[in-house]
């Protein structure tokens, strides 16, 4: 049974249609890949699913664990178990990472998230102990932001984790760490969707399913071999 079902999703941004009928299913405990060239609508899909007010859904349905998602504001989607790791998380001055995550953890419920344990654990897992008292993303390098985003999702243990380019701008060691953490999240039951241009992160964590987005539609899907094929030959291979 898929945990997340997207059906015929159409999304407009600033009046312009970007997604034009996306169909997608994510299975619990599995890693999925969403690949596609620049401008194909990958981030739009992620932000629309998370409920960004600038992304207007004009048609289609989304179900999380059988519940309709599209009528809910962003925080209710998060509380229902869908979380997005941002491609470009904002720097929020004066807001401590620790403070923010304590709140995020408490609204998730003690059953899912016990802050006293989960926060230090997540920091250690992502090798980010020295960030515990830092302000949210403030002055983080590109790679540090990626790790911090994943750290937050790792701690909050969502049912569905959407990771928007978790691999861009990170060095080789961090890439391996990120891949390991993705695998671990999937092992504990999270359905993970990794959004990326490049297959390199999949060397460490092969996806069960690869979706290729092209001009606002899923034009191809398959097993992990599809990721390698794209890596070798580019997105042209799926164009026909």
């Amino acid at each position, binding site marked *: 049974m898929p945990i997340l079902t997207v059906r015929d999703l159409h999304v407009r941004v600033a009046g312009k249609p970007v997604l034009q009928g996306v169909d997608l299913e994510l299975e619990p405990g599995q890693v999925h890949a969403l690949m596609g060239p620049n401008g194909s609508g990958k981030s739009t899909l992620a932000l629309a699913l998370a409920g960004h*007010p600038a992304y207007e859904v004009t048609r289609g349905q989304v179900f999380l664990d059988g519940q309709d998602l599209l009528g809910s504001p962003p925080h209710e989607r*998060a509380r229902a178990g869908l979380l997005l790791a941002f491609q470009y998380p904002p720097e*929020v001055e004066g807001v401590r990472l620790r403070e923010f995550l304590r709140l995020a953890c408490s609204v998730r419920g003690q059953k899912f998230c016990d802050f006293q344990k989960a926060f230090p654990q997540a920091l250690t897992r992502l090798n980010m102990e020295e960030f515990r008292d830092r302000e949210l993303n403030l002055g983080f390098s590109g790679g540090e932001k990626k790790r911090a985003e994943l750290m937050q999702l790792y701690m909050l243990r969502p049912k569905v984790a959407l990771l928007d380019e978790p691999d861009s701008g990170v060095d080789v060691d961090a890439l391996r760490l990120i891949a390991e953490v993705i695998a671990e999240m999937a092992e504990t039951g999270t359905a993970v969707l990794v959004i990326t241009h490049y297959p390199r992160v999949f060397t460490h964590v092969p996806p069960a399913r690869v979706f290729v987005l092209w001009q606002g539609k899923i034009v191809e899907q398959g097993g992990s071999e599809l990721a390698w094929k794209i890596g070798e030959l580019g997105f042209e291979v799926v164009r026909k």
Partner: protein
Amino acid sequence: MRVSAARLSRDFVEELSWEKNEPAWMRAHRLRCLEIFEKLPMPRFGPDLSELDLGDLTYYARPVEPVRRWEDLPEEIRRTFQALGLPEAEQKVLAGLGAQVDSEEVYRSLLANLRAKGVIFTSMEQAVREFPWVQEYFMKIIPPEDNKFAALHGAVWSGGTFVWIPEGVEVEIPLQAYYRMQTEGVGQFEHTLIIAEAGSSVHYIEGCSAPRYSQMSLHSGMVEIYAKEEARVRFTTIQNWAKNVYNLNNKRAWAYAGARVDWVSGSLGSRVTMLYPTTVLLGKGASTENLSFTFAQEGMWLDTGARAIHRAPETTSRLVSRSVVQGRAKSVFRGTVHVAPEARGAKAHVECSTLLLSPEARTETIPVLNAENDEVELGHEATVGRVSQEHLFYLMSRGLDESQALSLIVNGFVSPILKEIPLEYAVELRRLLEMSFERAVA
């Protein structure tokens, strides 16, 4: 003691002085102030004061008799002080505490070890009666000619605190005063005079509140601080007056060589506030920091500022303000730095940021930087912004509802000031902020 007709008149001022059993110099001072008050115009800048009827105020009220124990206060006022956490703070975090209701002090305490070191922490009236030398200090920093409300204060002042820290004595935990306006339509005019002798240090905290009435009331306190050579004085005010209060204060300090004076102000209440704590840097190497946080809500005009007057070489000042404006409200910040010709090597930095939470919110920042010599470093930054929708979405996408997210962002915005406010107060501030945001979002 009862003052019969508590309307503003020469007879009232004389009777007030008589009943306070004041020395002749103070009586003469009051009458001189009254004359000056009558001549001076109302302030020609800032908020609209036309609805403040100075003829319709009660200039003296004493609804509560002083007590030695909290338990002996009347039920209503005791509950108020308990809800504010005063008796608890006295036990846990304060070196001394004074509490005033309307015109007179009702309670005061000071730790025995500070009394033994010679620290004086007493009512202003008592100091005027007992120490003739107070005359050399009283309203010498802010003379009545300075402005109409300074003159009014000089004529009708009642209550407040006198603090004297002997040379070299460091008071490590704060002294606090709490001001409560209880009677409808009352004016409260407490006078605070702090003298920190050379090498001493003290942190003084003021809190204030009042129940809300329909009639306007006036709070016009005065604070004068003498920080002598190498002394350190920090003065923190958390103001949460009701929305019928005009809060028009005068606060000024003299910092001698090597001394440091810090003002920390949190303004959350009142209908109108005019507050411009000023430090005059008199001696070489003196420094001042002025941290101001204002939260202007529906119908309020918070006109605040900070002034640093550099009159000696190598003096430094840092004026920082964070304002949050919600609803139809206005905040103004006037940051003034003046560097005299003799103040070579002075450094000054003014920084003010405003966060607007509603389309109707108004703000103005009025910096005045004036240097009369070339060997100075002056810096100025000002920003005005609204809550970023991207920030809001980011926090909400992790499960925070809108009011939680907004509250976190606003708390973050004011954190450079909040972190300077003692924890017990910061908690109260945060709670007040959160309550307001919940209302705003709902």
